[in-house]
């Protein structure tokens, strides 16, 4: 009887201890997510770049898009202006806080769209051009240690707590030392793999560490993927009027 009582208390203690350790670990992972968000954010600077998007489609072949990106993370604003192809030239996506507008220069009209929507015919979502918000939009479901290529990584499973994100479940491969996201898998509500994203190149720009090359693989259409490369990166001050509808209208004329 004495022995039995000992085993019971020992098991209970182990359970309490292990849950405490797990909670401690999850808090560590949450801190890593906060760091990921913070190091990809331009807090006191504006950000602009030229994005070259190569869309590979087994049906349509290869298409190239050139998009000018402007970001002001402080006010949660961005502007995407399409330069190429010529049929889409002048189309723009303007984010003003919670509102994302699409501009069509052929009708000179704006229409509401959402961050969840696909960007043109690529595999990117509009949200991909906004600042990362893993720590506030997702909660940690679990994690484990893993290896990706030569990198020791944390494999972190996330569940969305924010309805505005394009994917309700995400799995991240994050380097253990520098906390860079190397890969992510994005899942639907039924946990079907929708997209895999790879981030093979990073660059230090101002105070931020941002991926300069992205490969977005469509997991539903075999052979479809989009690669995005950033160039002409700048952290110079962008005039306030650039993040306005009137600028988008004027620049497209």
């Amino acid at each position, binding site marked *: 009887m004495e022995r039995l009582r000992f085993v019971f208390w020992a098991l209970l203690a182990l359970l309490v201890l292990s849950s405490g350790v797990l909670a401690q670990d999850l808090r560590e992972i949450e801190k890593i997510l906060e760091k990921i968000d913070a190091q990809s954010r331009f807090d006191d600077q504006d950000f602009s770049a030229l994005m070259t998007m190569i869309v590979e489609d087994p049906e349509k072949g290869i298409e190239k898009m050139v998009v000018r990106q402007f970001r002001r993370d402080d006010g949660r604003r961005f502007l995407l202006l399409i330069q190429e192809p010529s049929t889409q030239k002048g189309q723009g996506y303007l984010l003003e806080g919670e509102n994302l507008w*699409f501009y069509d*220069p052929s009708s000179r009209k704006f*229409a*509401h769209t959402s961050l969840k929507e696909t960007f043109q015919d690529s595999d990117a979502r509009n949200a991909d051009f906004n600042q990362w918000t893993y720590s506030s939009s997702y909660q940690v479901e679990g994690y484990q240690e893993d290896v990706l290529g030569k990198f020791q990584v944390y494999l972190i499973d996330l569940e969305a707590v924010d309805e505005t994100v394009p994917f309700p479940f995400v799995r991240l491969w994050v380097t253990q030392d520098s906390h860079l996201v190397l890969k992510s898998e994005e899942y639907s509500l039924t946990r079907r793999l929708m997209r895999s994203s790879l981030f093979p190149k*990073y660059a230090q720009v101002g105070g931020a560490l941002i991926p300069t090359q992205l490969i977005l693989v469509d997991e539903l259409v075999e052979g479809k993927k989009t690669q995005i490369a950033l160039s002409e990166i700048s952290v110079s001050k962008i005039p306030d009027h650039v993040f306005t509808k009137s600028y988008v209208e004027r620049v497209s004329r």
Partner: protein
Amino acid sequence: MRILLTIAWRNIRENKVKTTIIGLIMVIGIMVLVVGNSLMDTATAGIERYYTKNYTGHLMITGSTRGKLTLFGFQDMTGMEQAVPRIPEYEEVLEFARSLSYVETLNPQVSTTVMVSQDDEILMGTQLFGIIPELYQEMFPDNLELVSGDFWDAGSGGVLLNQRLSDHLEKRHQVSLKPGDKLVFTSVSTHSGMKIREVEVTGIFRFKQSNPQLDMLSLMDVSNVRSLAGMVVGHTTAAELSSEEQLFLGSIDEDSLFDTSDSLFSELEVVDVESDEDYWYSLLGEGGSLDTLNSEDGGAWQYLLVRLRDEKYLKQAQTDFARFFRDNNIAAQTSNWLQGAGALAEMSYGIKRIFNGVVLVIAVVAVIIIMNTLVIAVTERMGEIGTMRAIGAQKGFVRKMVLLETLLLSGLSGLVGIILGAAVLLILNTVGLEASNVFFEIIFGGKVLRPELSFSSVVLSLAVIVIVGVLSSTYPASVVMRTSPLKAMESRGG
């Protein structure tokens, strides 16, 4: 033969009770067959008439595709991969169609799906048919009723909004639309990027006969629909890629992508952006060619609907068009009205097949009951037949007598059944069977079904009468023939 007929008629008259019971069963059975089949035939013809007369014509010409293309766009996964193709060499196709003597009218269309918004508020999604009002009304002169306003004037644009949609807007969004109001339409195509058009509502209409799919449909000038569907003059030229851009084409090996930790960071030059105004307003260069590239492709059509002078020319038309496309190397195809009508028409056909199955089961049961009753009636007369054989009647004589008697009875009952069935159908035709819900509306091909006596149901019933008569007399007659006259007479005595 006359003697046989006399004997058969005498037997039928003398066994009044038996004749009445057997006759009644046959009358009901045949009546069920006539009414059931006529109902199904009327509904089938109704759906076909309903669609060919009001929405599809007899034939739909489109660009070649392996997908399931309907007037409402692709109704399978093909829609995710490609846009609805344009009809290549449209002018040539049109000229050929006009040259065919059995072609009555032609109506070209363009179709797309859009979101409707007003004052920055997204209101609903809808399907648009881009049409030329004169050609549309020439092919479908009586399919819609204008609730307010009218079609747009020739040379200008506009949208004729479905009343169901305007009612929906009023109920859900408290938006009361009238001619002259403007709505913003945003295309949701993944193939041509987003397109926006602000279009004036020139009128509100309702289809005289509708279904949930057609309730979602509004009519718009073709020019705006072409732009929304991405049917613009400009097209994307083949992308020229640098060697660096080609690096990640094809399949990707994730491990080799992350095989050295040194390669993760790239040296990028951070540039300074000029601050003068000119720089910011000249980012996209000259926009002069933009409008030209984005202007609608004026000769482009996705569908050419063909109404024939008579449905009997359908096969000939399909053959002629197929030969024309092949000879002229035009990547186009024809589909019949059912393929063009979309999911709901196909669904109603599917449901009808199930109903046909149910009618068939009822018919088989009726036939079995009739045969069984006749078999019992003949075997009951074994003693009588044995006596006839004993006083010199030949096997053939007896067999013919039984056959004639059965055919006479089933023939008379069948005729009464057909007449009664026709009477029931006449009543139903006068009263009209009202569809109590959308499900029956789809099956009936409209709100009311007025069934008519169908020729095929009469032919089928007559065939059943003859087959049942022959089968149900052959078996008992052969049983009787195998029995010796003495044994047969004994059974009468027993």
